[in-house]
């Protein structure tokens, strides 16, 4: 527990200067501050922390949890690949870490990952609004402290678009195919023993959100769906329901960076299949 408090204190202290800086720069006068015209290196740029009050069932466990996301990317120069100036591609590398730290004995969203992604962003004449991505990735996945873990490498593709099904909506779809090395997964080791070996896995992620009227109490509704499906899973894994994980959420975004989220399902290393209700406050440190 001490380790969690240290981590949380560190994250909060890291977030505080950025939050204060943001508060200090908010003025009613539309004049660009000097800082916006300069390029500054900030190690905290890309860190987002959600402070959540969480209740999970059927265990009926309530408590505080921090959800963190850290993203950094290195981009090359845009290059043109067609006649139109908008037909561009961009080589880039991305590092991303996601996870949650719970202040209760059992983390209801006990899944963390660190991913390095090398690939390209592509803009096509096919759409005036969509962005496409292709890449190769290497990821370390685990529980909250990575005591149980596995590594994954493979290929990924994604697209993001706006004004898709309804006005004022946006959609992101990502599909990844990877090879998983489960040698750090204790539960799988116990089930398979000497037969433990690498396996192939498909991951699909859909994020869809609709902005509502600026005057409404609920500013935005967002749906997310994640599915991890193991290909040709051994019988022991299928019988233990470890071959497929789905986790879906619906989030209602409220004023003042608050969000009310309902979640259902399970994720790799978070195998209990909880239903979660949480009220969260989001801090973005840049």
């Amino acid at each position, binding site marked *: 527990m001490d380790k969690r408090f240290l981590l949380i204190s560190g994250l909060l202290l890291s977030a505080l200067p950025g939050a204060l800086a943001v508060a200090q720069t908010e003025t009613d006068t539309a004049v660009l501050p000097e800082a916006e015209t300069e390029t500054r290196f900030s190690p905290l740029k890309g860190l987002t922390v959600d402070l959540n009050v969480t209740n999970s069932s059927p265990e009926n466990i309530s408590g505080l949890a921090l959800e963190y996301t850290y993203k950094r990317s290195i981009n090359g*120069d845009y290059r043109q690949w067609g006649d139109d100036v908008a037909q561009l591609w961009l080589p880039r590398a*991305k590092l991303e870490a996601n996870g949650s730290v719970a202040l209760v004995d059992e983390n209801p969203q006990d899944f963390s990952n660190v991913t390095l992604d090398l690939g390209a962003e592509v803009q096509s004449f096919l759409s005036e609004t969509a962005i496409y991505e292709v890449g190769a990735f290497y990821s370390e996945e685990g529980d909250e402290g990575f005591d149980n873990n596995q590594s994954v490498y493979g290929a990924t593709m994604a697209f993001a678009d*706006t004004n898709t099904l309804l006005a004022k909506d*946006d959609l992101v779809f990502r599909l990844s195919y990877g090879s998983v090395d489960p040698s750090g997964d204790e539960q799988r080791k116990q089930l398979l023993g000497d037969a433990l070996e690498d396996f192939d896995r498909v991951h699909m*992620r859909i994020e869809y959100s609709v902005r509502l009227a600026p005057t409404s109490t609920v500013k935005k509704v*967002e749906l997310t769906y994640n599915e991890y499906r193991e290909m040709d899973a051994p019988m022991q894994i299928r019988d233990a329901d470890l071959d497929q994980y789905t986790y879906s959420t619906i989030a209602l975004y409220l004023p003042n960076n608050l969000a009310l989220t309902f979640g259902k399902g399970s994720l790799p290393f978070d195998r209990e299949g909880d239903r979660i209700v949480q009220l969260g406050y989001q801090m973005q440190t840049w």
Partner: protein
Amino acid sequence: MSLTAWQESPACIATYRILENDKLFDAFDEDGLPFADAGAATIGHLLLFFGTGHETELRAKSYAKTFLNAFRKLYLSDSKLSRQQYTQAFVGLSEVFTNKDSTLLAIAGVVHAAFYNGDSE
């Protein structure tokens, strides 16, 4: 000259019109956010896409592309558009759309730097 204040310049007017457009972003009502007050409004408040889900960067780039192509259609003649201008604007817009605290003035600043810098206003 860089754009340092919200004013009735081509870049500020274009930014306001594109974000207000019902068929594009529909981010605010003209009555609710008059032009004179719009420069300090943040995109986090108006567009609400910040920090949600996992794919924030990709989503912000889609917003940047939507904005830029609308600007291109409504305010530019393609014969005057260079790849350098397009990429400069896209990189700048992607950056401001990723930051929820970016103001409409910051967006107008990117548009001004890419397309109007050097013009007499």
